[in-house]
């Protein structure tokens, strides 16, 4: 039934947006992590969305095609007492931009909400359809 396909479309968008929110949470949490398991400062991570056909050509859901690392250089902070400081007293800090992350967070949560509403509308339509002939 074509209406129940809306659940697949909206559901794929919801899981993609929650992955984006997850990446944002990770970036904000690590905004001050001067080191990571591989010894380099943490790099901001961003998700890449891609439209995928769900069922037929005309219905496209969303999937996260890749998680990419921000290639911007790390921020250098002058702090000679820091254990990770180099010979000149500078520490390489993560290239996370808190403003960008907050904007991403709001955008992801609003898009998630919109898809929840899409699903609710589709559900109301399906329930209404079931009352035909009663």
């Amino acid at each position, binding site marked *: 039934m074509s209406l129940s396909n809306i659940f697949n479309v909206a559901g794929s968008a919801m899981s993609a947006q929650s992955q*984006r929110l997850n990446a944002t949470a990770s970036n904000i949490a690590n905004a001050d992590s001067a080191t990571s398991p591989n010894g380099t400062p943490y790099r901001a991570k961003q998700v890449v969305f891609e439209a995928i056909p769900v069922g037929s*050509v005309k219905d496209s859901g*969303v999937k996260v095609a890749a998680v990419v690392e921000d290639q911007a250089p790390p921020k250098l902070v002058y702090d000679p007492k820091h254990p990770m400081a180099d010979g000149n007293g500078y520490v390489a800090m993560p290239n996370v931009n808190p403003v960008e992350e907050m904007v991403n967070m709001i955008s992801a949560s609003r*898009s998630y909400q919109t898809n929840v509403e*899409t699903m609710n509308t589709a559900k109301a*339509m399906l329930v209404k359809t079931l009352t035909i002939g009663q």
Partner: protein
Amino acid sequence: MVSKLDDYFRFNEMALNLRAQRQQVLASNIANADTPNYKARDVNFADALKNALDNKSNTIPPLQLDRTAASHVAGTAPETGPGSIGGTALQYRTPAQGSVDGNTVDLDVERNEFVDNGIRYEAGVTAVNGQIKAMLNAIQPG
């Protein structure tokens, strides 16, 4: 007798079918509001319903390249075009404000159309219910 009943319900059945399919296309647009290079699509509902009622569903040719001279190479849209609803090709929306990532989804427009289409679908269901009640009244004694 049965074919008369079929004809009686046919219009609203077609309309509901097309509304449901259009709802799906609009849901795809909303779902892909953040996907780079995604182009929002929609169908002209009046045309789609007219084509479906005239049963012209198989007569719509795929999109062709416009040719201004006979020697130009003919081109046909690939299978992975915008898709179709009831045989009527979907069209791409013209964005009011372009965006840097090539996405043409305007969430305000899409949500407006989505809710509007949903309400019209429910109105269609109410109309079908009315038709069924009228027929039941006609075939039941006293």
